[in-house]
């Protein structure tokens, strides 16, 4: 099919189409400016700084220090250990709750959801503080245990890994439950009925039909929780009492106490790279829209 090169109105139409495209793009420009100016440039700057040694010249010493120093290795191990433990515990107690909620009627599920959302929107500090007060030596938990005769002396629940874990699980749980619940809600109930009609016991139907279908949501939740744990600052700082040092805390102390931007940036870059890798894997497994849904 031959088309004449001088097609009617072609140039004007092309300009019209371009103008439309520009209009919509234009609407996103202020946002882009904000992100570029406030994230891309500062983080890029930090990236550059991480390669500046103490004497002001280009060097890898900041990174070298990280794998050589015992302190840093301990920090990496602690960060990973706590992140993984938190993620596992969240999955273990979050999955049943999400499942429970997904099987309720809309009305009751929404009521339970309020129970998940209220802590979610309560200030991080308030929740961390609440655990601090509950778990301390003269705190509620110890008092009740002593009154009930379970223990004779207060147990140290805070300023250690235990307290940190408890606090972090509490903060992270809604992040796991929300995507998981959304996924479970969307599972066609007819699938379970079909499995049942084909001869599966409820337990079998769950393991072979429901669980696999809920995996995307679970995975999304696990990845969000893990990534957030890696970079977490506030709760470990307060509930760890200085004994549990995670990456974010080291970054902060590098700057506040030592003004060593090079060291802080290098650690930050490592954190960023690990986060980016995990998120990249996540994006291959789960669509971006699902990660952002609430």
């Amino acid at each position: 099919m031959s088309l004449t090169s001088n097609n009617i109105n072609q140039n004007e139409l092309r300009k019209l189409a371009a103008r439309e495209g520009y209009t919509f793009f234009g609407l996103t420009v202020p946002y882009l400016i904000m992100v570029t100016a406030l994230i891309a440039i500062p983080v890029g700057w930090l990236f550059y700084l991480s390669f500046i040694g103490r004497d002001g010249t280009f060097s890898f010493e900041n990174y070298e220090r990280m794998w050589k120093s015992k302190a840093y290795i301990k920090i990496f191990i602690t960060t990973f250990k706590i992140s993984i433990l938190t993620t596992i515990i969240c999955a273990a107690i979050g999955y049943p709750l999400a499942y429970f909620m997904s099987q309720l009627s809309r009305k009751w599920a929404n009521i339970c959801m309020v129970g998940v959302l209220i802590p979610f929107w309560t200030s991080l500090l308030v929740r961390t503080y609440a655990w601090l007060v509950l778990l301390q030596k003269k705190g509620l938990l110890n008092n009740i245990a002593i009154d009930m005769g379970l223990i004779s002396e207060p147990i140290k629940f805070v300023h250690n890994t235990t307290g940190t874990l408890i606090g972090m699980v509490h903060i992270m749980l809604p992040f796991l439950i929300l995507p998981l619940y959304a996924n479970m809600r969307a599972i066609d109930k007819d699938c379970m009925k079909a499995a049942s009609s084909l001869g599966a016991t409820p337990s079998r139907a769950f393991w072979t039909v429901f669980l696999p279908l809920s995996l995307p949501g679970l995975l999304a939740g696990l990845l969000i929780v893990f990534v957030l744990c890696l970079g977490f600052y506030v709760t470990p700082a307060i509930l760890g009492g200085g004994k549990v040092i995670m990456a974010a805390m080291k970054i902060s102390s590098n700057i506040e106490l030592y003004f060593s931007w090079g060291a802080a940036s290098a650690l930050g870059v490592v954190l960023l790279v690990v986060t980016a890798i995990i998120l990249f894997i996540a994006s291959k497994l789960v669509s971006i829209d699902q990660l952002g849904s609430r």
Partner: protein
Amino acid sequence: MLGHPGPYFTTNRVTMENSSLNISIKNVTKKYDEFYALKDISLDITSGEFMTLLGPSGSGKTTLLMVLAGFTNPDYGSVKFGEEEVILKPPHLRGIGMVFQNYALFPHMTVEQNVGYPQKLRGVSKSETSKTVEEALETVKLEGLGHRRVDELSGGQRQRVALARAIVFKPKILLMDEPLSALDKKLREEMQIELRQLHDTLNMTTVYVTHDQKEALTMSDRITVINGGELMQLGTPNEIYEHPENGFIADFIGESTLIPVKVKNSKALIGKTEIKVAQPLSKDGDFLLVVRPEKVFLAPPKKKKDQNYFEGDLLDSIFQGESQLLVIKLTSSDGEDQVLRVRIPNQSVTDKALPAIGEKVTIALKVADSYVVS
């Protein structure tokens, strides 16, 4: 009333002022990467005509409508309303009325506010607006429902509100994108006739998109069959039905059986049997014989010269209410099986018995009705 529209728009329609426009479409092409949504479409729609764009899903008919409305800009081409080139004009300046498939009524407004919206946009005074809104609602038989909210209306009522909103400002051109597809069969058939009557009263040029060929045949002055972004055939309902120009159209419009026919030396052969066809055979090659179920009938005992005959076994006999559908397997000398459908109207009780399943039957088709396509 006006009844079934004839092949050309009735000249005895009362034309008030000549307030409609003709539409002239030239070489409109729209490409998405390698895919042609519209390929060099050229079409002239007469002022006041009811033109249907008919085609299967994805054929490009809705794309063409959107180009007319201004929501889709083609890669090149020209669209004129009357004398004016509108291809570069934004939708809000084209002066068209449009009804969408899902009506797209504004849920945060009442019926009155919905219908009055175009008037508000045009700065029409409040009193004039209420007058025209009332008129529009009366025209679509929804008088008195102005104060209702959209979610209180039934599907059929919503459709009428969408219509009222599109005509309240008396546009010269009306575009409709499968407006009846969401309605159930009975309501749809009633609305087809009502819409046609509305068109006749209001004298607007109407472009109507549908995939339902029966709907197209019922309502249109002319039909444009579109497939794969290309214009297949343009003609009156009668022309399209009786003389489809190719196998696709023959298959898409109405029920038909297409029987392969070889033409050699001006002779048409099905297998080894020669048949006589209605049109002159100038070219040799492979063709298809279009056999409409209502045009074939059980052959009477005496063979006539102006009829073609087909032999076969009766596979099935299906009662379909107003007609009986016979499914016949033709005995062909070619080796390939061909199934022919014959529709016999169930008229009043006769003592003529229908053939039984398994019997050998002979089917007749008048030569005048034997029509081949490429």
